């Protein structure tokens, strides 16, 4: 039996706000969360631009043991998940009585790995890395921490798919519920922002060097874009089957109606048109929709010259004259990498529930590909019932999600 899958909770902790209300305001006003970090420049980065995310103070919220087990991005994920639980109307006592799962996107734990190994090199003694290091260095660190803090007893799985991790996490959660394996799953993505998290990526020359204008550096689809700006935080959505949500009287926000995915089967870092186009078509088919049914498309577009051009081509190939409103929220947030697919579902759902489309800030001049898209250069006060969110990652992994409003 196939089940309908709905979203009943959301939470966000990002460079444009520490909760849903702050983020909604930032999206509406087109506020950038990008800064120039002198620490990154001193460390040797080609670009010192980054999204700025303030670490939460968890003293008083969690005991010492829980706090020291968490790296930076698990803290963000914790904050986002607490908020998602509040909006869904569930707490730890609910998880004790019901089998609730956790599928979270994450693809790095740089700081804990580097600091731990540095300590062993210095001390020549593994014990002196302390007890928490092993729980911080594993890629499943967010799952380990959240599932023990919240006493979760369902599917417990980390999803690593580079910059599509958060999107695939929601897609996989949707599949588990749709197929009847779980009634409720907490899905999301977390991304670290410390100086150790991005130097290898910076090495590729993929980051914008518009350092004199940090808030204008991330400019998806714009003719003069020169690279992405890395960012991070945590984003959580709570999925459950429709009958489960209705039975417990939950407030339903939206419905996940489509998941598409593909692998480019080509180069490890060069983007493709065919791979994303196949993901888009699969997602539309899964949702049982035509291109003209989509009211808004939240693009992956990270502000890299090649990536945005390829995505614009793929969107035009699939949507053509049925082009929906398109914007990339990365103009404001930068590229939230492992978190992006989840955060952009939160951002787009906030827009849908509040009847606006956030602007693709810094889009001033189109290029030959983006000119074919219907890009929201300014905030659009408009209603839409269905949106599509794209996420693509290194290795050629692609994910698309279609979400429908619930009224």
């Amino acid at each position, binding site marked *: 039996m196939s089940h309908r899958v709905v979203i009943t909770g959301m939470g966000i902790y990002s460079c444009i706000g520490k909760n849903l209300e702050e983020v909604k305001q930032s999206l509406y006003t087109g506020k950038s969360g990008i800064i120039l970090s002198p620490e990154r420049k001193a460390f040797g980065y080609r670009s010192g631009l980054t999204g700025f995310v303030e670490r939460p103070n968890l003293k008083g919220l969690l*005991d*010492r*043991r829980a706090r*020291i087990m968490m790296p930076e991005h698990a803290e963000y994920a914790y904050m986002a998940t607490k908020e998602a639980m509040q909006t869904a109307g569930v707490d730890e006592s609910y998880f004790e009585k019901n089998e609730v799962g956790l599928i979270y996107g994450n693809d790095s734990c740089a700081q804990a790995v580097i600091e731990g190994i540095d300590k062993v090199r210095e*001390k020549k*003694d593994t*014990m*002196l*890395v*302390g*007890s*928490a290091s092993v729980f911080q260095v594993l890629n499943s660190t967010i799952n380990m921490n959240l599932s023990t803090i919240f006493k979760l007893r369902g599917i417990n799985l980390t999803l690593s798919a580079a910059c599509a991790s958060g999107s695939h996490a929601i897609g996989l959660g949707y599949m588990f519920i749709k197929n009847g394996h779980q009634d409720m799953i907490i899905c999301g993505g977390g991304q670290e922002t410390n100086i150790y998290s991005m130097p290898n990526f910076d090495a590729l020359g993929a980051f914008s060097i518009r350092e004199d204008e940090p808030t204008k550096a991330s400019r998806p689809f714009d003719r003069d874009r020169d690279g992405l700006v890395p960012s991070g935080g945590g984003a959580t959505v709570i999925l459950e089957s429709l009958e489960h949500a209705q039975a417990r009287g939950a407030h339903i926000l939206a419905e996940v109606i489509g998941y598409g995915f593909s692998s480019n089967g080509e180069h490890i870092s060069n983007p493709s048109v065919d791979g994303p186009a196949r993901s888009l078509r699969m997602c539309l088919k899964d949702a049982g929709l035509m291109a003209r049914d989509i009211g808004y498309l939240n693009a992956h577009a990270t502000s890299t010259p090649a990536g945005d051009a390829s995505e614009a081509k793929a969107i035009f190939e699939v949507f053509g004259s049925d082009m929906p409103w398109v914007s990339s929220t990365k103009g404001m947030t930068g590229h939230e990498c492992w978190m992006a697919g989840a955060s952009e579902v939160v951002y787009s759902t906030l827009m849908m529930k509040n009847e606006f489309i956030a602007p693709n800030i810094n889009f001033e001049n189109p290029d030959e590909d983006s000119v074919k898209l219907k890009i929201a250069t300014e905030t659009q006060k408009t209603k839409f019932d269905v949106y599509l969110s794209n996420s693509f990652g290194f290795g050629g992994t692609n994910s698309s999600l279609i979400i429908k409003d619930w009224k």
Partner: protein
Amino acid sequence: MDKSTIISTIHHFLVEDFEIDESTLTPEADLKQTLDLDSLDYVDLVVSIESNFGFKVKPEDFSKMVTMSDFYDYVEQKVAEKTAA
């Protein structure tokens, strides 16, 4: 490092890093009951002692200590040995 400095240093990291109530830290207090540490916490206690006093405790040495006073004496002795060396 004199004994009172050793004791205040120990108290500082037990309160700050292990969140132990300072009022329970008396010489006669039972070490295991007072610290209430699990196997993971003992690893962190080894780290705290090393970073504050510059020597590494063997985890099995903890089993010989009964009171907080034993703990203070143990650290004092190790610090003295290190200074003499």
